[in-house]
């Protein structure tokens, strides 16, 4: 039986998993939509991963979670490693592209840049308050134009003269887009203009002050959009690498982190069928009104978070006991 390391990346839009062998080969993987239910998504994910592991005779010995639901899923799977998605992405990408110097990432709700030198991440930035220029922005514009967002890339590439769209701010971009459409710019040019606007916005916000050196790898859901890839390539004057497995990098990275942690415990796929429940409770202990989340398995409290102080934990324990 071979030893495997499971990495689970639960994002706001999609949930990904990868099982790595001891020498970093991807033995099993899965990719599906979170659909606002991370626990349910991970249950389905485990159902897909289990037969793949059985087929190549792999036993999962360590689990890592990442993504915005990492704590929740970490509690559910009793994960050995719980790590933020930026570190996980950097680790995953470096394992596949050791030469990379710049990692660009645009996801559903956030965008980041990671600067790598000699195989070590040395600097990074993430969008601050403003979510302009992320996947959510593109999806909103696609709805406005009544075109599936999946077709955006193809249509943008057809354009020869992208329309100039003000990319500084989502609100302005939107009104600018409407104006350009009303005065008669072709839709393909407008879509290409949106792709250029996203790139300009990214480079002026997240990428500000960073030295972007080739080789560049572009990841996240928006990297599937050829129009944005082309706009990046033109703006930076270099080739942009987009990995087929780009969507799995977070899962691969967190599996690697689980392996490196050295912490191991036999993993049982039946954890998916356990009575794992979460519920939200207002602490009410003080004016902070912390929103606690209680995670229970078979009626026992296994974790709680969302509290700003110890009182929240005490309260959580009391609430579960009284139930």
């Amino acid at each position: 039986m071979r030893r495997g390391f499971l990495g689970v990346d639960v994002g706001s839009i999609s949930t990904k998993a990868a099982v790595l062998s001891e020498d970093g080969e991807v033995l099993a993987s899965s990719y599906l939509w979170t659909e606002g239910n991370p626990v349910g998504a991970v249950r389905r994910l485990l159902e897909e991963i289990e037969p793949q592991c059985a087929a190549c005779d792999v036993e999962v010995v360590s689990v890592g979670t990442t993504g915005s639901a990492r704590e929740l899923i970490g509690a559910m799977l009793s994960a050995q490693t719980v790590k933020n998605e930026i570190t996980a992405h950097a680790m995953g990408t470096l394992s596949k592209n050791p030469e990379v110097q710049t990692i660009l990432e645009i996801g559903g709700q956030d965008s980041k840049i990671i600067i790598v030198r000699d195989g070590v991440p040395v600097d990074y930035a993430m969008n601050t308050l403003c979510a302009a220029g992320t996947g959510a922005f593109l999806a909103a514009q696609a709805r406005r134009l009544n075109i599936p967002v999946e077709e955006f890339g193809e249509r943008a590439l057809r354009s020869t003269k992208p329309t100039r769209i003000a990319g500084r701010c989502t609100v302005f971009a939107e009104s600018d887009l409407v104006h350009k459409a009303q005065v008669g710019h072709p839709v393909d040019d407008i879509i290409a203009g949106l792709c250029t606007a996203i790139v300009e916005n990214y480079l002026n916000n997240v990428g500000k002050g960073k030295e972007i050196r080739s080789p560049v790898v572009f990841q996240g859901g928006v990297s599937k959009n050829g129009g944005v890839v082309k706009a990046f390539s033109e703006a930076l004057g270099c080739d942009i690498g987009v990995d087929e497995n780009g969507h799995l990098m977070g899962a691969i990275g967190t599996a690697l982190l689980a392996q490196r942690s050295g912490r191991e415990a036999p993993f049982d796929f039946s954890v998916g069928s356990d009575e794992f429940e979460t519920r939200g409770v207002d602490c009410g202990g003080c004016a902070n009104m912390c929103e606690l989340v209680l995670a229970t398995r078979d009626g026992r409290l296994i974790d709680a978070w969302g509290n700003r102080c110890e009182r929240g934990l005490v309260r959580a324990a009391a609430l579960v006991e009284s139930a």
Partner: protein
Amino acid sequence: MPATTVGLPRSLFFHTEGTLVRRYLEGIGVTAVMSPPTDRGILEAGLSLAVDETCLPMKIHLGHVAALRGKVDAVLVPRYGVLASSFGEMCVKFWGAYDITRNVFPDLEVLSYDVDRMYGNRERKALLGLGRELGASHMAASRALRNARREVASAKASLVAGQTILEAEADPGVPRILVAGHTYILDDRLMGTPILDLLKAEDVTVLRSDRVPDVKNLRKRAVEFSPGLKWAYNREQLGAIATMRDQVDGIMVLLSFPCGPDSLVAELVQRKVRDVPICVIVLDELTATGGLKTRVESFCDIVKMRRAG
């Protein structure tokens, strides 16, 4: 009619000047009550009282005044303007805090003192004037102020010395992170404290820009970033970064939305410091701790990986 119980809002100036003023008032026989540390309730009260466009610390300030209402005879809201030509000026929110508070709370008695070199009002003169207004003799007020200043100076010095010792004694293997921000943000229970706590949980040595020694020197060194910075606190922050940049592994800049001077500082730092990782965190009233945790954690990871090489 002299007020007997004076409320001090735990906001803006009183994060730095609060202890001095409290000790001084106590010295002249006035009871001083400070509002409790910021919590969600204070923030929400502030949000409902303030105009939307003002900055988060000002909204929190109004929440603190509201928290004191009914518990004190008067609330003290000073005005800080030009400190000295070489120090720079205070932000306009400090200039306007008194008038804004009076307008938002017309039924409240609001005491004030005015520190502004432009009109020859040094802090001593301003505070002695306040003492007179509260019925203290000149001699009693002078003595109380002298004692309060002595006490506070030694407390401030020990904070700065504490950081210097921390810096000298900390394990050189542990990464050092300089957190640059205003004291009224760093010391606020809702804005800065959660971030400092997250950093401490990451096993890094946390140094604060407002505890870097030799403030006078810091104000001078700010010119390395820009020759003509107007705002006093921003000069000190940039000076602290100029002084410390070679000695730290990362710089975290905290600013509150939508602060003009702070956003300028963040911009200058991002453009001019290219050899140290920088993380800019913008605080607003909606800031969710989840997003903060991801940012703080990943920044510390990058700093640690960079060190490990």
